[in-house]
């Protein structure tokens, strides 16, 4: 019967329950037989009990890490049986939510100050944080061949809007501003800067063509470590402060084995290689 294989090998009592006299799968009118439907529903309800070790973990993920984290969560579930439930957004917003009781158990921050602050304030477990990725900033345009020499393009100023994330709230925005300051262009370009609320919105501004250029995360446009669409200038890491992205175990997750498992998983060699393939650096 349908439910046997899904129940898995662990829950034997449930499997036995299914070994009854064979029943017609459907009634004459094509519907599922009522008693079978009931059992099917019951099995689905009890299914989570089948694997007593599998747990769920609520993860707050900085927007720039959306694409790699989706892939990592899939592998994590396959390899460990644990399920990572992901919420994507701006780190500063997550901070406010966590401080006000949000049920997140792990934070994958876009910076290294927010996890530290949460640790000091007792919302995160001391000693649990580590750098899971080092962000790379890219000046990107969806137009192929447009961005060749980034600094030169910025100096010429032949564009109407340059998008970046809000430097006050987003580490990639702060890095973008530092890059403009390094090039001495922050004053001349001030009138043309448009700010996304987070790096995902910044990418959307550029991808939709409303801004011709934008400073975004390399991970948003990279595949196998290279820019996959459009054209871009990967900003050298020595002209902006390093975007050290830290993961931290939050107080709400300290007794959840899946939360600890996820943090361990992020530090494994094959996952680190995966993170690198999205255009991140490592420490």
């Amino acid at each position, binding site marked *: 019967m349908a439910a046997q294989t899904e129940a898995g090998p662990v829950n034997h009592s449930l499997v036995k329950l299914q070994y009854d006299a064979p029943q017609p799968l459907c009634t004459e009118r094509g519907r599922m037989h009522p008693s079978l439907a009931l059992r099917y529903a019951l099995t689905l309800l009890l299914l989570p009990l089948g694997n007593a070790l599998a747990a769920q973990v609520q993860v707050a993920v900085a927007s720039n890490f959306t694409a790699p984290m989706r892939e990592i969560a899939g592998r994590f579930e396959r390899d460990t049986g644990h399920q990572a439930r992901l919420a994507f957004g*701006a780190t500063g917003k997550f901070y406010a939510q966590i401080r006000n009781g949000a049920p997140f158990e792990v934070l994958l921050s876009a910076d290294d100050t927010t996890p530290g602050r949460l640790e000091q304030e007792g919302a995160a477990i001391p000693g649990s944080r580590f750098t899971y990725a080092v962000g790379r900033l890219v000046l990107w345009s969806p137009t192929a061949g447009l961005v060749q020499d980034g600094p030169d393009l910025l100096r010429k100023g032949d564009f109407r809007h340059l*998008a970046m994330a*809000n430097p006050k709230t987003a580490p990639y925005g702060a890095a973008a501003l530092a890059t403009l300051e390094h090039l001495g262009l922050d004053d001349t370009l001030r009138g043309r800067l*448009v700010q996304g609320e987070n790096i995902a*919105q910044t990418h959307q501004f550029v991808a939709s063509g409303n*801004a011709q250029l934008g400073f975004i995360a390399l991970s948003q446009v990279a595949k196998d470590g290279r820019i996959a669409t459009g054209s871009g200038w990967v900003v050298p890491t020595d002209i902006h402060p390093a975007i050290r992205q830290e993961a931290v175990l939050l107080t709400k997750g300290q007794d959840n084995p899946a939360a600890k498992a996820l943090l361990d998983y992020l530090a494994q060699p094959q996952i680190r290689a995966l993170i690198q393939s999205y255009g991140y650096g490592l420490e």
Partner: protein
Amino acid sequence: MPLDSVDLAAIWLTFKLASVTTLILLLLGTPIAWWLARTTSRMKGPIGAVVALPLVLPPTVLGFYLLVAMGPNGFIGQITQSLGLGTLPFTFAGLVVGSVFYSLPFVVQPLQNAFEAIGERPLEAAATLRASPWDTFFSVVLPLARPGFITASILGFAHTVGEFGVVLMIGGNIPGQTRVVSVQIYDHVEAMEYAQAHWLAGGMLLFSFLVLLVLYGSRLKQGWRG
């Protein structure tokens, strides 16, 4: 003073946006509301539904479509570009366009109700006195619909002040141009500047309460004719 110059610029911008939007909506909404109130056309239902859409649509839907439509490849963007105006996102004009869509039902519906409440008889009386349709509208309809206009103005203005999602999607957060109070509050919260966030948020709360107090207070006196 707990509010800095950026906060004050956001407040000023918000009032400017709400004023311009309300003015445009009164000019645009009056003929729409009049038509909706008087017509027997089969299009009354569909047009009325379109006007009411922003009441139920999430601002993200409106903001997303506006961003795409006003972008260089969208149909509004193509028109504005061919007129030499460039594209509208990230500009004050773009916010006005977005706000006009966003607050449209809040102006049209009170006006429509007011026009419908007038009924046929004053119009027929004016016609027997040989008043032209325009004369009737300005001498009879407008004075009778005054409470409706007051309600429509207040609601249109207040609803635009409270706009957030659409501005966030098409604004680009430019100080003095597109950074309105609601976005500024959001920025303060994200930047963990909670004291400034409280001042602005508290101000918004007080403002909204006072607006509604004026609105409902005057409505009570008029016996809910608005």
